[in-house]
C-alpha cells in the first residue's frame, strides 16, 4: 500500500475488471475503503465518494474476483518439506515450478539430486506425489531407490497417500523383511519385500521413524499454514477451505494467529470433521463460529462416507468396477447417516458430504431426504463433495432437495483415462463430474482440486470442467462441458455460495471484501484452451496487494 496516500479511498485501475455481477459485468475502476469494495465502475462512478487515491499498478492487468477453492486441505502446505516427484507440473510455495516426472528414471534422478542437497547424515529423504498409475505395469522398487542411497533411509509417498515406497535402509529400520507376514507389504517372486507399503499398518512403522513428516494434521504446524497460503496465492486464490479439520486447540490457535497477520494472503474456512475428532459435536462448531474473523471462517461440517474411485474404495452402484474389483468401503455405516448428520442439520449448520461413488451419493440423498422431511430448513446449502458419478436421476433429486454440488472436476484430466479404461468404463466416465447437467437443473455448483490430491489451481480446474479433456487428450462427454463464463463463475461466486460466503466474496460488488485475482489476460476472452495456462500475477486481499513470484 502507498504510505503517501491522501485519501482513505484507494481506486485500483485495471485494463478490465471482470466482476461476476450481471448488473455490471465489466468495469475499469474499483474503489476500496477499509478493505471493502466501495464502488465499481468507470472513473466517474467511483469518484462519487469524494477524493480518491489512484493506484495504477494494474493498468495493464485484468482483475477478477479472488478465486475461491471450496475443497482443499491445509495438508498441501505440509507436503512441501518433502521432494515433489509427481507426474504433472506443480508449483511450490516459493513459486518454483516443479516439472512433472514422466518416467521412473526421471523420478530417480530427482531423488538423487535432492539427496545430494541433504547435509544431515541421519535425516531421511522424503518425497511425495508419486503416481504409478501413469507408468503402466512398471513399479518403483527397493532396487531403484537403493541406487539413490543404500545408506540413507528413503520414503516416497504416493499421490493417493494410501501407499508408499521405501528403500532397504528404511525397510531395515522399520523391521520389515521376508519373514514379515502381513497384507500390504509387497513381495517379489523370491518373497523379498519390494519396498511398496500399502495402507495404514504397513506404513505405520515408517511414520514412527519419520516423525511429523508427510503428516495430515497440518494446522498443528505453522509453517504448513504459511506454505498453504503461498500456494493458494500463486493460483489467484483468496478464500480456501481446510475441508477436514480436527479443531484442536493448538491448530485453531495457529490459524487465528496466522490469519491475523496482515501478511497472510488467504481467508481460511476450516471444516470440522467429526469423524476425525468426535467429541463436542455441533456445539464445538457453534462456539468456534463465535470467534470468526474476516480471515478465519468456521462453520462448515465435513463428513466422508466412502473412499476414492481410483483407489477402488468408492462405493459404486451396479455394475461396479470395470476391472471387477470388489465394491469399495464405507467410512460411516449407511444405516447411521440420518442419526449422525441430523444433529448438525438441526443445529443450523451446513454439511459438506464426501460421496465419490454413485451408491454413496444415492444413500446420502436418501438420508438427506429423510432429514429434510423431518426437520425442514430453508437455505441449508448442504453440499455434496466430489459427487463424481451421479447420474441424471440423482442430480434431479439433489436439485429438489436444495443441495449444492462441488464437483471434483480435476479428475477428468488427472485420472480421466484411468476411469475410462480401468475403474468405471466409458459409460460412466463420459458422464462423470456432470457439472453442466447440474447447471441446467439450477443446482448451485463449484469445482475443486482437493489439494494436495491434485494441484490447487482453480483456473486449471475451470479448464477441466469446460473442456473435459483427459491427460491423454480424450474428451469425456462433450455434452457435460460447462460454458467458460459459467466455469469462471463456479470458481468464484459458485464456490463462495457453497461456503455461505457469497455475501462477502466471489464477485466484485459494493460491500464485499476487496479480494481480487490479478491476471495478465481476460479469462472470459481467451480461447477456452488457454484457461489452464493463464498467468496469475498475484492477488489482492482486503485491498492489500500480494504479488506472486514470476513463474
Amino acid at each position, binding site marked *: 500500500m502507498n504510505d503517501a496516500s491522501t485519501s482513505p479511498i484507494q481506486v485500483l485501475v485495471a485494463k478490465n475488471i471482470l466482476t461476476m455481477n450481471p448488473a455490471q459485468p465489466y468495469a475499469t475502476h474499483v474503489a476500496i475503503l477499509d478493505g471493502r469494495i466501495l464502488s465499481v465502475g468507470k472513473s466517474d462512478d467511483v469518484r462519487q465518494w469524494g477524493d480518491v487515491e489512484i493506484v495504477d499498478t494494474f493498468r495493464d492487468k485484468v482483475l477478477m474476483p479472488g478465486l475461491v477453492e471450496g475443497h482443499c486441505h491445509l495438508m498441501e502446505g505440509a507436503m512441501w518439506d518433502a521432494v515433489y516427484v509427481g507426474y504433472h507440473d506443480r508449483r511450490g510455495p516459493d513459486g518454483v515450478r516443479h516439472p512433472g516426472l514422466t518416467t521412473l528414471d526421471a523420478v530417480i534422478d530427482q531423488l538423487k539430486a535432492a539427496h545430494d542437497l541433504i547435509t544431515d547424515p541421519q535425516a531421511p529423504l522424503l518425497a511425495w506425489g508419486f503416481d504409478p498409475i501413469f507408468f503402466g505395469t512398471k513399479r518403483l522398487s527397493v532396487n531403484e531407490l537403493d541406487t539413490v542411497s543404500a545408506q540413507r533411509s528413503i520414503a516416497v509417498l504416493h499421490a493417493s497417500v494410501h501407499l508408499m515406497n521405501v528403500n532397504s535402509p528404511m525397510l531395515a529400520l522399520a523391521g520389515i523383511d521376508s519373514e514379515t507376514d*502381513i*497384507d*500390504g507389504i509387497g513381495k517379489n517372486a523370491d518373497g523379498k519385500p519390494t519396498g511398496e507399503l500399502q495402507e495404514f*499398518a504397513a506404513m*505405520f512403522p515408517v511414520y*514412527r521413524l519419520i516423525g511429523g513428516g508427510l503428516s495430515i494434521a497440518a494446522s498443528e504446524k505453522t509453517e504448513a499454514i504459511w506454505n498453504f497460503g503461498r500456494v493458494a496465492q500463486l493460483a489467484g486464490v483468496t478464500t480456501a477451505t481446510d475441508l477436514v479439520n480436527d479443531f484442536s486447540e493448538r491448530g485453531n490457535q495457529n490459524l487465528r494467529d496466522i490469519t491475523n497477520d496482515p501478511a497472510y494472503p488467504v481467508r481460511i474456512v476450516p471444516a470440522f470433521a467429526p469423524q476425525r475428532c*468426535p467429541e463436542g459435536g455441533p456445539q464445538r462448531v457453534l462456539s468456534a463460529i463465535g470467534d470468526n474473523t474476516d480471515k478465519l471462517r468456521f462453520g462448515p461440517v465435513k463428513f466422508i462416507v466412502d473412499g476414492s474411485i481410483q483407489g477402488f474404495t468408492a462405493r459404486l452402484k451396479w455394475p461396479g468396477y470395470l476391472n471387477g474389483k470388489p465394491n469399495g*468401503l464405507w467410512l460411516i*455405516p449407511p444405516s*447411521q447417516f440420518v442419526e449422525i448428520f441430523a444433529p448438525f442439520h438441526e443445529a443450523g449448520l451446513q454439511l459438506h458430504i464426501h460421496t465419490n461413488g454413485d451408491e454413496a451419493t444415492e444413500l446420502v440423498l436418501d438420508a438427506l431426504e429423510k432429514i429434510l422431511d423431518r426437520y425442514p430448513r430453508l437455505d441449508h446449502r448442504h453440499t455434496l463433495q466430489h459427487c463424481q458419478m451421479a447420474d441424471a436421476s440423482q442430480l434431479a433429486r439433489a436439485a429438489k432437495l436444495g443441495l449444492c454440488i462441488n464437483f471434483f472436476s480435476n479428475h477428468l484430466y488427472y485420472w480421466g483415462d484411468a476411469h475410462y479404461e480401468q475403474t468405471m468404463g466409458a459409460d460412466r466416465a463420459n458422464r462423470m463430474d456432470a457439472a453442466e447437467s447440474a447447471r441446467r437443473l439450477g443446482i448451485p455448483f463449484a469445482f475443486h482440486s482437493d489439494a494436495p490430491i491434485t494441484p490447487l489451481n482453480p483456473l486449471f480446474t475451470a479448464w477441466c470442467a469446460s473442456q473435459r479433456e483427459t491427460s491423454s487428450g480424450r474428451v469425456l462427454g462433450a455434452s457435460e462441458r460447462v460454458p467458460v463464463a459459467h466455469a469462471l463463475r463456479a470458481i468464484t461466486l459458485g464456490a463462495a455460495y457453497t461456503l455461505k460466503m457469497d455475501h462477502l466474496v466471489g464477485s466484485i460488488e459494493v460491500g464485499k471484501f476487496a479480494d481480487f485475482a490479478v491476471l495478465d489476460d481476460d479469462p472470459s476472452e481467451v480461447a477456452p484452451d488457454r484457461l489452464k495456462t493463464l498467468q496469475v500475477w498475484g492477488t489482492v486481499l482486503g485491498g492489500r496487494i500480494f504479488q506472486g513470484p514470476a513463474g
Partner: protein
Amino acid sequence: MTASGFRGPIPLIVVGGYLGAGKTTLLNRVLANAGQRRITVLVNDFGAINIDATLIRERTDDVIALDNGCVCCSIGGRLVDALLAVSNRPDPPDFLIIEASGVSDPVRIAQIGLLDRAYRLYGIIVAVDLASITQTLLDAYVGEITRQQIAGATAILLTKTDLIDERHKAAAVAELATVARTGIMLEAENGAVPLELFFDDNVTGQLPTNWSRSMTGSNPKLPVDFCSLLFRTTAPLDRKKLKDALRSVSGQLLRAKGLILLDGEAATQELHVAGDRILITPFRGEVVTESVIILIGIFDNKTKQATLDALAAATSTQ
C-alpha cells in the same frame, strides 16, 4: 518384561463387529474386570463412548479415566497419532484394546501388532449379533464388510443368543462357520464376556513353572474343551514346518506363544501366534536350551494329541 529393563511390546487386541453386535458391552465387561492391569482402550469410531458410569473417575474432552487406572480414549480417525502417543508414553499400558468402527475391517488395524515393534497382536475379536447376522450378511451395502470382519477374526463372540431359539441359533452358527476361519466361537450370555478371550491368565491348564503369570480358575461358561496346551522339545524346529503345523490347527487356536530354537538360528526365537497369524522374532532375553510352546484354544483329547503330533513333526529332520 525382563530384569534387564527391556520393555516388551504392548499386547494389542482389536475388537470388531457390525453395529449393535455388542462391542461396547464387551469393552465395559473387560474394563470392569481389569484387575491389576492398566488397560487403554482406543475407540476408532465416532459418537459418544458409553462406558459404565460407575467405573468412571474423570471425564475430559475425549479421554475417560477409570477408577481402576484404565483409560478410554475416543480417537476418531486419528489412529496413527494415537498409536504413536500410546507407545511413547513413559508408562505405557499393560494392554491396548482398539475398538474398530462397525464398517471397518479390524484386520487392517490388527496388523500393526504383527509389524510394529511397540505392539504385539493378541487377537482380533469380532462380536456377532446372532439374532440378526443372517440378515446383515445379506445386506447389499454392508454384507460384504461384515463377512470380511468375521473371516478375519481370531475369535468370535456370539451375542444376543437369548433372542433366538436353539434351531435358529444352530443355523446361524453353521452359517458363520462357512465364513469364519476360526472355530473359536464363544457365547456371551447376558453380556458376560469370557475374559479368557483377552487374558491368558484366566485360562486353565498346564503351564511351565517359569512362565510369568499363573492361570487362575476355570470359567463354567466356556466350552469344556477350552484349555491351554504345552509342547516342549529339545530338537531344533524347522521354521517352515512349524508355521505349517501351527496353521494346520489355527481353526482351534486362540493364541500361542513360546520361546523356541530354530534350525539355522543361533539365537533363541520368540514365537507369537494369534489365530493363523504367526510372528517369529529374535528373543532379547535369556537363552533357552529347550523349545517351549503354550497353545490356548479349543482342544478335545483327539485334537490335543493331533496338535502335539503336528508340532513334534515340525522338528528339523537332519
